[in-house]
């Protein structure tokens, strides 16, 4: 009896999980499917789910009519550049906090994280004016700096939690053998922290890739990444939906892949460590 009820429960839960999962995935799926339709099929009534004329012409058109590759390249440069610089700054910082902690370490960390909680509009005007005065508007360098600073607290904090798990004794042993701080970090700490650094890197790439507040307000075309490109397209007017879907699909494709591997880090980073 009890067993039967358990089976029923599992069946019911599995079915509802499928249903909810489908609903959740539907918008993404539909966007991907639409990107392979002709503009006519995209609006056919009733909607064609799988049995339509598959075409890749939208992808070709997107590149022809606009400088898609340019914006995609910007996205890669901005996400990659800001992540690498953030890591360069954050590894020493996290090292210092994880291996020579003081009474104030926890407070410093929380303070750093708290800056990430503030709405960015609070600093928009001064940053904008600085950018204008230093001729950084619509430049990749300026944007890399802002994105890097914006995500730095999370990067430091993630690395800190990973470094914490590395036994201090190993570093101390290296120290006894006369390794300098630099050597200790590069040859002892880094190899052990590779998984942690890799997850932090993935998380930051996703965050920087998706960032839209600063990219929308500080760029127009030269340095504009995919988010800006798609936002500027965002009035489909009923005619270009398939093409817009193609552009969006290309923009989310890397995220779909990276996201699969780094969901845990995503949760960890976005909850400021409430969930590990």
């Amino acid at each position, binding site marked *: 009896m009890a067993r039967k009820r358990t089976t029923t429960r599992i069946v019911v839960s599995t079915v509802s999980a499928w249903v909810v999962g489908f609903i959740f995935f539907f918008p993404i799926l539909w966007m991907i499917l639409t990107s392979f339709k002709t503009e006519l099929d995209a609006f056919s009534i009733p909607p064609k789910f799988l049995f339509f004329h598959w075409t890749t012409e939208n992808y070709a058109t997107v590149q022809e009519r606009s400088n898609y590759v340019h914006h995609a390249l910007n996205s890669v440069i901005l996400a990659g550049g800001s992540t690498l610089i953030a890591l360069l700054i954050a590894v020493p910082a996290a090292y210092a906090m994880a291996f020579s902690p003081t009474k104030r370490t926890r407070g410093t960390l929380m303070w750093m994280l708290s800056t990430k909680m503030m709405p960015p*509009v609070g600093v928009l005007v001064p940053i*904008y004016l600085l950018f204008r005065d230093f001729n950084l508007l619509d430049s990749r360098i300026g944007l890399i700096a802002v994105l890097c600073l914006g995500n730095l607290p999370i990067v430091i904090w993630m690395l800190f939690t990973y470094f914490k798990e590395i036994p201090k004794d190993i570093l101390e042993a290296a120290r006894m053998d006369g390794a300098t701080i630099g050597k200790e970090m590069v040859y002892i700490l880094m190899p052990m922290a590779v998984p942690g650094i890799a997850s932090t890197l993935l998380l930051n790439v996703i965050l920087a890739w998706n960032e839209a507040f600063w990219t929308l307000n500080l760029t127009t075309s030269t340095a504009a990444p995919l988010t800006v490109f798609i936002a500027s397209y965002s009035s489909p007017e009923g005619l270009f939906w398939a093409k817009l879907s193609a552009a969006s699909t290309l923009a989310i494709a890397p995220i779909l892949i990276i996201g699969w591997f780094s969901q845990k880090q995503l949760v960890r980073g976005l909850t400021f460590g409430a969930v590990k």
Partner: protein
Amino acid sequence: MPALAIRNASSKAVLLPTVVVMIVCFYGSILWTIYISFTRSGMLPSYSLQGVAQYVRLFHTARWHTAFANMFIFGGLYIVAAIVLGTLLAILMDQQIRLESVFRTIFLYPLAMSFIVTGLAWQWFLNPTMGLQHFVRSLGWESFTFNWIVDRNYAIYTLVFAAIWHGTGLIMAIMLAGLRGIDSEIWRAVRVEGIPRWRAYLRIVIPMLRPLMVTCVVLLAIDVVKSYDLVIAMTKGGPGTSTDLPAKFVVDMSFERANIGLASAGAVIMLIVVLAAVGPYLYFELGRKNR
């Protein structure tokens, strides 16, 4: 041991640049914004103080009222719905279903999407002439109407739908972690006592997860105050200004209306709202960890 002292000092030194940059960029900018909010600044910053005039003006601006009220409507509905749905999903995931990790990934996928893509997908889905309404009508239900996104009274609620889709996975993950942390003794006791499962969840398990729920509320509240890109991608604040949010108001005031003073006043109010939401939480969180 002087070597150790040097080591400690040098490890402080590597931390210094980060701290300095953060203090200058972050606090410097915020202080500047606060200062400007008390000046007459228009298109360009001016540094002569004029008291709280910008704030008075701000609260006499109808558009700010809409934006500010929208933040609470949007935020309230989004937070409640995301937490309820997220908790239900977490309970569902906790029933030993097959392929659990696949489902978990699917629920988390929206979270990895940018708000721009999210807004775009939902804008299209809710558009009366292209999306849901069009589809249902084509099935033969001619009178079906779902045009909230173009109705100034209801457009703000469409933002809630998109935000829920985006954020529920995060709550699910938090609550699932909480559910997994529940002592198995409690479940054994529930079984022995013969308490129905749904009651056990409602009366025993969920109350135990209250601290996690508080975390969820704070995290979502931070997101709500920050919301900007979702509105831009989905409604651009329209129809009219009916879906304006404070962040969009501030950006528009800064650039389109060239009124830095008023924009800064709005930004300061937003900072205060975030502080009100986060401050007590951080305080207790820090207090708990230190003990």
